[in-house]
């Protein structure tokens, strides 16, 4: 991925790789200082990183001049994003200068707020492409000028000292990871000394610590943070070595931010935590690498890490200098740069899936189960309102994804202009799963064909293919590109593609889709076209 860095200060020394901030797969290009507009108007990079130093834009000495500069910069940025599918990383500024009076302090602070308001409005107009970085993180108060080197700024336009360089690099790196790398899908939470202070089995329900006072405040804040994660689309599972009835009692008696129903799975027993975690991952059909385990106990952390390679583990220390909720809030794979409607109902969607599974277990035959679901597939074609969700699906779907083509919103728009992008919304008697399937047909080839793993096992993919093939007046061809995780997609291609049309269905090749096979498997699904 090529990343263009623009700044009003020398930036090359700032964005260097380190073990903690490796900037994986990134090729940096640094343009000359103060070339925002000229560079943005020509840029064709995957992403642009803009670093505004407080000594330029935070200086209110010539406010109209900087107002024009900012307008010019944002206008050029807008055109860059329209022209490319690139992402833009941009910091908000903090006021950083000496003042001679309180009037000036108020005036200049207000000025910085005005600039930030413009920047925030700009980000809200482009919620999927613009990522904001907190500038205040490396700019302490004006009474502590240690982060800014005014002399170096004057001589060589390098105002940041070693400590602030580290913070700047870290903040932009984490923003980059949050935007481009998949978010964690589930947090596995311990209970005792993680969600509250104390041990239920020893201290009793009334004496566990969670309150507005120290140290209880840190447990309170951690629970609030976890609840925010849940509302942003991250699932929570409770994994605790306790009796279930004690856990149920705590949540019913104590008034805490988290309720028992906020957890998609509760495993309160005396089995190894790794076994419980693996079981939950299997039930929810989530990969271990999408999980995060938090616990205060080193033994438990080691046990889980030893048993489950890909899961990430984080130690919770409520009395640490950096409280747990602050530490987790800076985890780039928990930060949500954009929350979709599907994210907001993720927990409910999985609850519906569990109900569905229970129904499946009670059905005598598979066909009876499928018919009993009463599935309705609503199809939209080139629905511009669905672009964010479609792009998100291309970024996140790995298993049933025939080409693993990762698309930005601009890419989806281009495909809509060039062909037909079908989005599929699934409802059954247990709930609405939202948009979970996409087929993009460009020049009679299904360049994107994916289905969220949540919708597996109901032959939705057959119905999708059947619909698209019926819509086309001529043959439709598929493309399969092998990845580490999409073996299930290859199987589907072999079952529904015509090998004789263009040879064996191998990596990268095109083949003709066969209508009859897919249609036969999807008779239990009602297809509705959205007007």
């Amino acid at each position, binding site marked *: 991925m090529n990343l263009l860095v623009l700044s009003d200060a020398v930036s*090359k020394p700032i964005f260097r790789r380190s073990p903690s901030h490796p900037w994986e797969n990134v090729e940096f290009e640094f343009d000359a200082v103060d070339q925002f507009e000229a560079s943005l108007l020509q840029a064709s990079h995957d992403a642009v990183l803009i670093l505004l130093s407080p000594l330029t834009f935070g200086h209110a000495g010539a406010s109209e001049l900087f107002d024009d500069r900012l307008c010019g910069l944002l206008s050029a940025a807008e055109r860059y994003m329209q022209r490319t599918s690139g992402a833009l990383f941009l910091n908000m500024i903090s006021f950083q200068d000496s003042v001679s009076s309180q009037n000036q302090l108020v005036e200049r602070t207000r000025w910085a707020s005005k600039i930030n308001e413009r920047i925030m409005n700009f980000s809200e107009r482009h919620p999927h492409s613009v990522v904001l970085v907190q500038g205040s993180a490396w700019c302490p108060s004006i009474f502590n000028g240690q982060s800014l080197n005014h002399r170096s700024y004057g*001589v060589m336009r*390098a105002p940041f000292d070693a400590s602030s360089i580290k913070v700047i690099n870290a903040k932009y790196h984490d923003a980059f990871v949050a935007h481009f790398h998949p978010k964690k899908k589930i947090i596995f939470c311990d209970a005792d000394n993680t969600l509250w202070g104390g041990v239920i089995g020893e201290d009793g329900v009334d004496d566990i610590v969670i309150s507005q006072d120290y140290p209880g405040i840190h447990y309170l804040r951690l629970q609030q943070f976890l609840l925010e994660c849940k509302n942003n689309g991250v699932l929570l599972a409770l994994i605790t070595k306790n009796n279930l009835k004690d856990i149920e009692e705590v949540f019913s008696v104590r008034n805490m931010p988290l309720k028992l129903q906020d957890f998609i799975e509760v495993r309160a027993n005396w089995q190894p935590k790794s076994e419980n975690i693996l079981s939950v991952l299997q039930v929810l059909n989530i990969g271990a690498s999408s999980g995060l385990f938090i616990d205060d106990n080193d033994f438990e952390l080691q046990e889980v890490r030893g048993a489950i390679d890909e899961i990430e583990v984080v130690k919770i220390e409520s009395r640490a200098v950096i409280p747990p909720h602050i530490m987790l809030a800076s985890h780039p794979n928990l930060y949500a740069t954009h929350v979709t409607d599907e994210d907001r109902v993720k927990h409910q969607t999985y609850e519906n899936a569990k109900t569905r599974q229970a129904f499946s277990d009670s059905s005598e035959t598979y066909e009876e189960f499928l018919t009993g679901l009463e599935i309705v597939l609503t199809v939209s074609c080139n629905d511009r309102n669905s672009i964010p969700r479609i792009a998100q699906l291309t970024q996140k779907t790995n298993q049933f994804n025939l080409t693993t083509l990762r698309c930005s919103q601009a890419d989806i728009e281009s495909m809509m202009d060039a062909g037909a992008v079908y989005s599929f919304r699934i409802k059954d008697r247990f709930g609405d799963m939202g948009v979970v399937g996409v087929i993009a047909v460009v020049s009679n080839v299904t360049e994107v064909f994916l289905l969220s793993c949540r919708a597996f096992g109901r032959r939705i993919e057959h119905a999708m293919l059947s619909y698209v093939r019926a819509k086309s007046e001529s043959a439709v061809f598929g493309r399969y590109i092998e990845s580490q995780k999409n073996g299930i997609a290859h199987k589907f291609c072999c079952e529904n593609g015509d090998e004789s049309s263009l040879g064996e269905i191998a990596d990268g090749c095109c083949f003709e889709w066969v209508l009859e096979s897919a249609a036969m498997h999807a008779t239990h699904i009602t297809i509705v076209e959205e007007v």
Partner: protein
Amino acid sequence: MEPKLIELTLTAIQNLKADLDVDIPDKLVGDFALIDELDSMDLVNLIMETERLLESELGRYVALADDSTFDASESPFRSLLAWQEYVCEQSRNR
């Protein structure tokens, strides 16, 4: 000149080798003209890296950039030896 600081200046150059757009010989000689071989961005890079290592070594910040830094006739970058002498002098003065 203090050996530790001499070593530090060479370490800074080696640390930047991957980032610099020129070939830096493995063994540098005293009359190696940094200001001719490196462009202004690279020189800024070198100043900041050397300042970082100095701060780590000495436990205090030592400013290495001033008006003469990029002046071809006076610049401490006119040779490696001049740069090393400059770094040692600035470290003593602060």
